């Protein structure tokens, strides 16, 4: 087992990561070019960038969902070779299992881990209450709105209690109001549990509202890495201060909108 000294204190360590894809016509595309980053435990990192520039690829590599990569990727000191229960993932697409009731969806990770039924039910109920879905725990996913299914996904991931949480644009498909509500839910859960969160988004406002640190990926490389010094909770007013706006303009410039 690789035991690198500074890797033990960091939640995620990425060193010289390169990822190539083969296109349909046979050409090779470099999705990530020599990316290196270290994420401390308990950080809420937002990864921003334009579509196709590599932020989801980075998340997939760390999550172990992308087998082939060059370089070194460590999560909690161990080399990443595949998906694992130490890195929970909230997917961009709706991954709530339609054939399981809400409470079974939330308890799935626990069931897989062999936790007895009564214990599972208790934990599931707890987390559903935390996201405000206590009333619909016996419902089928098809009966829920998109926003409620997103909450189920969040509850499910937190119920399994992974130390690291990877979120791949989880609220992108939701309307503005629901998105703001879910950001609030996720943020509160993070504060309560102090997990390490890697949150990929193309929404600059969302990144500034949630992240303690913001990284910008452009053309497969990290071009910006800033700490966000605003104390939580961040209201819209907080985001309108000159310093926040300066940061926002910086980010917008990097993603080409300014």
């Amino acid at each position: 087992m690789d035991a690198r000294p500074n890797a033990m204190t960091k939640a995620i360590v990425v060193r010289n990561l390169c990822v190539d894809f083969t296109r349909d016509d046979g050409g090779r595309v470099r999705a990530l070019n020599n990316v290196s980053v270290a994420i401390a435990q308990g950080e809420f990192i937002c990864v921003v960038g334009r579509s196709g520039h590599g932020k989801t690829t980075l998340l997939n590599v760390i999550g172990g969902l992308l087998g082939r990569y060059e370089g070194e990727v460590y999560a909690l000191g161990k080399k990443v070779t595949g998906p694992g229960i130490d890195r929970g993932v909230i997917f961009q697409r709706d991954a709530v299992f339609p054939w399981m009731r809400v409470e079974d969806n939330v308890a799935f990770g626990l069931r897989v881990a062999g936790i007895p039924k009564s214990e599972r039910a208790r934990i599931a109920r707890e987390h559903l209450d935390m996201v405000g879905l206590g009333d619909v725990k016996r419902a089928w996913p098809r009966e829920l709105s998109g926003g409620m299914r997103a909450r189920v996904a969040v509850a499910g991931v937190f119920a399994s209690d992974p130390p690291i949480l990877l979120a791949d644009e989880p609220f992108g498909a939701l309307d503005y109001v629901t998105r703001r509500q879910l950001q609030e839910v996720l943020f509160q859960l993070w504060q309560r549990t102090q997990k390490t969160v890697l949150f990929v988004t193309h929404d600059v406002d969302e990144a500034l509202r949630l992240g303690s640190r913001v990284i910008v990926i452009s053309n497969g490389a990290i071009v910006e890495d800033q700490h966000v010094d605003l104390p939580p909770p961040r209201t819209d007013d907080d985001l309108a201060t000159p310093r926040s706006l300066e940061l926002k303009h910086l980010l917008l410039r990097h993603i080409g909108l300014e």
Partner: protein
Amino acid sequence: MTADDVSAAVGRRGKRTLRTRDLGDALTAPAGVVLFLLVWTAVASRLPPSRLVSPWAVAIDLWNNFLRSPRMAVFGLGETGYGELLLYTARNVLIGFAVGSAIGIIIGIASARFRLLRIIIDPIVLVLGTVPVLVAAPLFLLWFGVVPFTQVLLVAGYSAIMMEIFSQAAADNVDPVYEKSAMTRGASWYQRLRFILIPGVAPEILGGLRITLASAWGLETFAEILGAPSGIGQAIKTLTNVNNVAGMLACVSLVAIVAIAADMLLVVTNRHITRWA
């Protein structure tokens, strides 16, 4: 999320109130059946009985010949009635369908996951489409003789091919995100099979089963007409030789009734199993 969202979700699970439109819809179904019988009777009244008889005459024939039918004895079937012959048919269909479908489903799902198997199976299935199953009927007769096995093999072969195609497509259509999600939550391959793949393919496979079973009845009857020791197909053949239209219609109606009943049973079962869809 508002209280409205939650109550809407909960409300969707409550009872639907009966609307006038629902009542109208419920009435048109039996009205449609009555219409069917009326049209049949009308057409039959204008044709000679050697061509078509009314549904009532068919029902009478059915009633008289269900348990014992001396007619059948003339052609070597014994004094069996339609009922016993139907039992033979139903037994063959169900055995062939069950065995064939099971094989087809397993191979179909496996071939979706294992590329090597797919490369081998796909061309075979393509060649052995549904038409060749029919042409195999006389071949099986030559090879295995006038025994139940010949028909069961035909139905089983057809079911296996159809369900392989459906199952492979169903497995391909399961959204990969579900399996990825399961992997990130630590599920083993067995757990992924049980909790993701099987529920995921269930709706499409159950739909395919319905389609396959519907055709299986015809295939079995056809094989029996070609050559069999018993069965409703043999009854039809016997009755054809004496131009007994009432009897022929009675037998065809019997097969139709059984096929419709079996289909309804499948629909109810499917609806329960996939009530989440």
